[in-house]
């Protein structure tokens, strides 16, 4: 039996906006095994990003449990969650979210440095990762000097910097054209081949086809599961 990487039970997340309470995730149960490639899709406001944030320890559940790699994330403080994210999770956001004041290679190295790697290994690791996404020639460019596709590839390199066992990607091709999106799909294929656990929210058919399992989320609940 494979190791359970993510275990969510009766997971709920509510947001309070003034007097209005929004239930982004409702009583959700989910299990994801090691090495699985899970795609989540659904309409805007279905709770996809919230679910990813809860699994990644960026947000805490209002009720229920989310256990990732054996850690009940709702019970830890901010410092532990930072260490947890650094060690276990790689994030890729729809809008790339690179640090604008750091160059491409520095963005990658930043994540490695957070993990406390020795200084001499940080440079080598960052160069290798940029080579992996085909951007070694753009290493010293700032995000504003890179195209959308290039920025997203740097974001993938950064997400993989610490060799995390879990990759969370929030609509990574959402802001990209078809051609550039294909470059991202190729990177995801490599990750799948490497046996990484990937959870990805997307509407991109090419990514959905890659997945071992697809979940359709609607109004904070899982409506369908296709394996």
């Amino acid at each position, binding site marked *: 039996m494979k190791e359970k990487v993510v275990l969510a039970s009766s997971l709920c997340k509510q947001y309070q906006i003034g007097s209005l309470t929004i239930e982004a995730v409702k009583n959700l149960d989910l299990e994801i095994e090691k090495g699985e490639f899970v795609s989540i899709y659904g309409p805007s406001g279905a709770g996809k990003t919230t679910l990813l944030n809860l699994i990644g320890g*960026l947000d805490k559940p209002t009720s229920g449990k989310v256990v990732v790699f054996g850690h009940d994330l709702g019970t830890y403080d*901010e410092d532990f969650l930072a260490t947890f*994210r650094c060690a276990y999770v790689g994030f890729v956001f729809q809008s790339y*979210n690179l*640090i604008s004041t750091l160059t491409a290679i520095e963005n990658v190295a930043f994540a490695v440095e957070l993990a406390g790697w020795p200084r001499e290994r940080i440079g080598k690791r960052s160069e290798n990762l940029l080579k992996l996404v085909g951007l070694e020639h753009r290493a010293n460019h700032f995000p504003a000097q890179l195209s959308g596709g290039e920025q997203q590839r740097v974001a993938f390199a950064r997400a993989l910097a610490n060799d995390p066992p879990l990759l969370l990607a929030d609509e990574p091709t959402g802001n990209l054209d078809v051609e550039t999106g294909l470059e991202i799909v190729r990177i995801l294929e490599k990750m799948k081949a490497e046996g990484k656990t990937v959870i990805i929210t997307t509407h991109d058919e090419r990514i959905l086809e890659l997945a071992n399992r697809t979940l359709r989320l609607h109004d904070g609940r899982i409506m369908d599961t296709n394996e």
Partner: protein
Amino acid sequence: MSEISFPIKDLTRRKYQTGLTILGLTICTSATLFLVIFGSNLGFEIAFLTVGGRLTSGFSNIFSRFILVVGLLNILAGAFITSFLVYLTMSERVRDIGVMKAAGCLSGSILGYFITELSILVFLSCIAGTIFGIGAYYLSINLLNALGFSVSQALSLWAVFLVFLILILVSHIFGALPIIKAAKVKPAEALSPLYSLGTTFELGRAVPSKLGFTFKVAYRSLVRRKSATGQAIICLAVVLTLTTVTIAGGMIANQTTTNYVERAIGRDVVLVGHPNLTERYVNLLSQFFETKEMESIDYLDPDFLNISESLVLKLSNIPGVRKVDPRLVLEASVLEIPGIIPDPDDPNEALVIGDSRSDEALILGVKPEVVVNEWLIMGRIFGKADQRSTIIGDSLALKMFDDPQNQSIKVRAHTFEETFDIVGVCLDPLNNGKVVYAPLNALSTELGQPGYNLLFLKIDPSERSQVLAEIENEISGKNLELVELNEVLGRHVSFVNHIWSFVMFLPLFSLVTATLCLLSYLMLSIAGQQREFGIMRALGARPRSIMKIIFTQALLITLISGAIGISVGLFVTFVFLIPEPVVSQYTLVSVAGWLLLTLGLLCLSSLYPAMKAVKKSVVGAIYSV
């Protein structure tokens, strides 16, 4: 929407920014006003109004220069703070301006809206600042009076009006600059999510990677917001110049003036004379801090001239008496005698200076070799054989003479009329500096009065009580009184210290203003970086790493502006404020300590926005707009 209702609604909607701007301007206004009205009441009216008041001209010069420099710096700081705070406000409003322009609003109308906002802010701040400034003034005056000094409560309404007017004008001029700049932004630019007023894509020189990401991110963020960073540095540098001038200048000026007073009166000096005359002398000496009405007195009354040569000899033989300084003192009219100097334009030609001005002064016949005072600020003391030379007080020198050392003074008293060449100027609080020290022999001969009416004895402080008892013993039954001048000196020093201690409140104002500037800048900087801080935390950066970045930004700005501000402040202090300071090592260490404390507190204040920034949830930070 009308040009009035929009700005009012806009200001009330943005309570935090409005409050911050009003607070900064209010502090500047109240500090400037307090300084000017407090200063003018104590007699050191600014600049051209220097002459007059109760302080001697020498002291007045130091105080008035201080007031002038600090007042100007306060106005300058007020102007820069207005400009900076308005700039920060406008940098957050560029998007609104874009929307207004896209909706067809003319640049002129936009300018009108924001200038009206500026006027509301400036008027509110200046009114509040005036109220606080006057309040602080009355509080200080009442405190001084409660401590035993008699300081008038008169308020110079002209000074209040002038400061109010200047600050209103300067704030409007400096505040309008960023508004004009922001109103000129093209709508397409203003609406672009990438555009931010005053930011650049240039990220400065490469930073050595060994300094780590904290420094790299902090440094490059500062460079990126180069316009705001530049303004913050200028603003803080001006405020820190002001802080340095008030701390260093205040402490050094305090020590210098205290030293002047000590040297002028002399330490461990005992006065012996007829009770009426010693009381008169003490009153004349106390004019410096306490105005007293005095009736005319005949100094040459035979009852007062009862200090014989044999008594002088006996007293000088008492062990523990270090110096005996007999004097013949009287009040007389003095007249300026014109002098001749080489013409500065043509050295072959001579120029007559002087205006035959006259005044009343205290004339003191002294033996130069035994004078207990060390109060010379210019020239030399006359020698034993110098029968026609004199030293005059600083107030007399300033009021009556163009070039005292090249002029003479005529003294008229009783049947006596004599002209003396001025060889030196002394800083003397006695009779507010209106004093003439002349050779005792010459004065006695001219007046036909060989005796003395006052005797000054410098005693050994370690044998004080024994010496005093022996002096008392020698003068008993001779209708003479002994007065210790240390008590009068103590009151002088205390008066000077109190004045400076009130002036020293100003660094507190400056520090609050500087903190406000730094916090405003950091708030803007954090708002711009909030999303990136969220990303860093998502990647695994701990909250304290984010705090370190913000603290490093504050440190960099504080160090740069501190280096500029402190250098300029020290230059102003030593070149313009007190060109001949009396500085002890302790004062220098104190000044350095206070300045370091100021910079430290300034840096520490950045912890507040840093803590506020990391309190925001990671998700909230990442998705913040």
